[in-house]
């Protein structure tokens, strides 16, 4: 990591900081955490600075900034977790948190385990951002908001309203574990968003555009990722939807556009392959390793190492490096995504998927960047192959029931396919399917794999983490489309 941060963005617990936490001090805290008889403990320090800027009605309306500092202490005894946190680096407060978390092991504990010698884990560099955007003066970011606003308005006179936002953060973490690991990471993140409303003959529709990732301001220098392009995209979608007609209802073929459609994958199989659900035998994919769970065309990976991607992680929140993990290979389930607890249960190495929203929460197996890899079909041929179906282009989100595998995902831009041609735009509609079922029905896969521009946030057990998704053009032979035209 070559980033040089100014003092205001440096964590007070970092070496050289106002309240530097060193291995010796961490060792003492871990000792306290394990006093009552825990098997394992870790301490997660987090310092996060964030800022947000919003434009509405052609004016920069609000600027915001926030600072969060705290530490979380986790103690484990068997599969049970004790967790406590505090927002103060004063020794007494930290020791109290360590003792509170350690109580999980009270009664029935064994003599305290010794804390190993803390050794630094080398940190890879999947987001070496030379200048985090927080170091750039605010007016530069306000200029981006104005550029997006102007571009969306200039796109068409029917655009009557534009909102633009820029959210940025930098998070520094420092982690110590009782099995002797010590790791640190600085995680930049930015997200740019535009929403446009189009109006014509009393009809109103909205569209959105945006992106981001673990970048500095250089993000906006990439092709089609400048502020104006995002503004134009929002305008384009809003205008396209003005003519939207009622969507059909029932089972039919669906062609997914590349990129954002990865949401389907994230919901349909991603969550079900998080190992906690399988360890507890609450997932449909429990006990399915080595079995066919998808069409032969499908290879699904979770890759925390994609440089600059919103879901990339140098180290996860348990101190394991981000990795490339194959989950499904040619239709066969080959692995789950693990945190430390589930990896121990399955007797394998952690996969770098132990993530948490903040120091206030314990880590869970979570996705990073989840993709369905590209196939061999020409994307145009895929659309041509459909007599009557849906072309799904943009999505507003999705949700899954892990247990029975049912998932929905919501289309914000979709079209009818008639006789192999993309025709009328359709009103917002949900697709509903069953995860394993739908992946078995993937029967054409494009050669045009795309990673989504970074906008997605995944929620699980009340914890949000940034993720990314990717797919090529995909044909699903049949899925239920939730329109109104029966």
């Amino acid at each position, binding site marked *: 990591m070559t980033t040089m941060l100014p003092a205001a963005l440096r964590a007070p617990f970092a070496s050289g900081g106002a309240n530097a936490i060193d291995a010796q001090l961490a060792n003492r805290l871990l000792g306290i955490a394990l006093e009552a008889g825990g098997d394992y403990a870790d301490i997660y320090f987090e310092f996060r600075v964030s800022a947000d800027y919003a434009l509405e009605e052609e004016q920069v309306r609000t600027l915001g900034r926030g*600072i969060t500092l705290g530490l979380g202490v986790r103690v484990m005894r068997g599969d049970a977790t004790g967790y406590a946190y505090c927002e103060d680096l004063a020794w007494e407060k930290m020791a109290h948190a360590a003792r509170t978390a350690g109580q999980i092991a009270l009664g029935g504990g064994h003599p305290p385990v010794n804390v190993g010698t803390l050794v630094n884990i080398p940190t890879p560099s999947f987001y070496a951002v030379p200048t985090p955007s927080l170091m750039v003066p605010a007016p530069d970011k306000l200029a981006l908001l104005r550029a997006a606003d102007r571009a969306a308005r200039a796109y068409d006179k029917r655009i009557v309203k534009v909102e633009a936002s820029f959210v940025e953060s930098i998070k520094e973490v420092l982690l110590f574990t009782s099995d002797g690991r010590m790791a640190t990471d600085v995680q930049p993140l930015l997200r740019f968003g535009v929403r446009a409303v189009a109006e014509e003959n009393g009809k109103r529709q909205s569209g959105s555009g945006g992106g981001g990732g673990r970048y500095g301001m250089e993000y906006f220098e990439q092709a089609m990722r400048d502020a104006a392009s995002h503004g134009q995209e929002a305008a384009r979608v809003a205008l396209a939807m003005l003519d939207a007609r009622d969507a059909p209802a029932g089972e039919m073929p669906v062609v997914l556009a590349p990129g954002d459609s990865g949401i389907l994958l994230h919901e349909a199989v991603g969550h079900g392959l998080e190992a906690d659900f399988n360890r507890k035998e609450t997932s449909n994919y429990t006990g399915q390793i080595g079995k066919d769970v998808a069409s032969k065309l499908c290879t699904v990976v979770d890759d925390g190492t994609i440089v600059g991607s919103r879901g990339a992680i140098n180290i996860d929140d348990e101190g394991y490096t981000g990795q490339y993990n194959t989950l499904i290979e040619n239709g066969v389930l080959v692995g789950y995504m693990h945190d430390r607890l589930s990896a121990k249960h399955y007797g394998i190495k952690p996969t770098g998927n132990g993530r948490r929203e903040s120091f206030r929460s314990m880590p869970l197996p979570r996705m990073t960047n989840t993709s369905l890899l590209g196939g061999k079909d020409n994307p145009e041929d895929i659309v041509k192959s459909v007599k009557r179906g849906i072309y799904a282009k943009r999505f*507003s989100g999705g949700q899954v029931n892990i247990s*029975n595998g049912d998932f*929905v995902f919501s289309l914000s831009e979709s079209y009818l396919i008639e006789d192999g041609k993309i025709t009328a735009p359709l009103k917002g509609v949900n697709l509903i399917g069953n995860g394993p079922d739908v992946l078995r029905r993937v029967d054409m896969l494009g050669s045009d794999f795309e990673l989504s521009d970074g906008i997605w946030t995944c929620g699980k057990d009340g914890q949000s983490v940034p993720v990314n998704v990717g797919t090529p053009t995909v044909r699903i032979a049949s899925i239920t489309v939730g329109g109104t035209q029966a």
Partner: protein
Amino acid sequence: MSAAQVTEATVKELCDAAQLAVELALKAGADHAEVLVRDGSELTAKVRLGEAELVQEAGSRALGLRVLRNGKRAVTYTSDLRRDALESLCAETVTLADLAEPDEFALPPDPALLAKILPELDLYDPAVAEVDAAWALKQAIAGEAAARKHDARVTNSEGATWSRVLGATAFATSGGFVGGYRGSYASLVVEPLCDDTTDPTTPKKRNGYWWSASRFLAEIDPADQIGIEAARRTVATLGSRKVETQECAIVFDPEIARSIVGTIFSVANGSAFWRKSSYLVGREGELIASKLVTIVDDPLIPRAPGSKPFDGDGLATRKNTVVQAGVLSPVLCDVYSARKLGRESTGSAGRGIGGNPGPTTSNLVMQAGGISRAELLRTTKKGLYVTGLMGFGFNPITGDFSRGAQGFWIENGELTFPVSEVTIAANFDEILKRIDAVADDLTMRSSTAAPTFRVSHMTIAGTSQ
């Protein structure tokens, strides 16, 4: 450990901190400052298959500052409440505000409207604080055990969780408001799991849940009762299947009915109105729902989960009607959205630590109707009784509504087999107007509540004929 009681002294201390920050902000150059301070603690005790899985205990404190200067505004927050940290936060916030553009509507509320005497709403129960982790675990274990014992088809569990939050909130403004209150809240949720081998070629898991929550410990249902209801609800979903695509009646279980009521608020508030991001814009005073629909937002119900003595602008809270016999009342507003619409606030401002105020609900309740749930079902010839919704398929601008659903098929007035993996869709305007029966089974289980109600018809998308 039981938690330290949140006392009136805690509230006073937070009020002082808020007032200090207001003073510092004015000193730093703000024309107007508003400070929200929250202090809270949580206990979460989760068990699974009879064993403790997680005990989480912690407290936290945060301060949010909003300043206005030359008609420009900025919002910041911190967890560091020391004086020197607050001084630098105030200076930084004022600098940020200077970068914004002036907004003629961003003015402090008229001081005459600020809440003067705060009602005592009885929102804090010391007994909730006295609970320790061991007792909480016992409750969770009892709830889960009752679920597993109730029915042998409950083969696994996603666990049971007992949790509580205790907290105090204080708010102060340079316009002269200062006030605070404390609150408690506790809940137990049980989540059983069944193996569904109805179709042996594709075995599935079926999950379900049931819960009880209150500000008062004694008002939470007994753990075994929650467990049994959770088991009953979960087992009932065994053998769920799709139905054919068709139009039919839709009956919403109260658990889901309340989310529909929440959706009504999302398009009937001042913020959505001035932004014109609601299909209801311009329709106040008009019939927007069936005459059977009356919805009230009441922040002054003693002991209720959503009650509060003052709003996010420091105004007195009051009972407001949202929909009266199908007619849309003036929408709920905070001070800013009211100004944008050229009217007065309804005392409905909500405010988070790091954000601007905006309209919110307190206890949002759809009033009970005149027939029993049994009668409502009995008069439904064919339809879907919805116990779960999934996804985000609602467009507030157009009212288009399409969401994943699960529940039970109604045939000749009886609940028959369980249904899943279908969607229900219609325009929201039509959904509200098609409500043709509202039951009398309203209970105030949560801050948004509704009785069972029926929509005469919507489109179900499922299998093709």
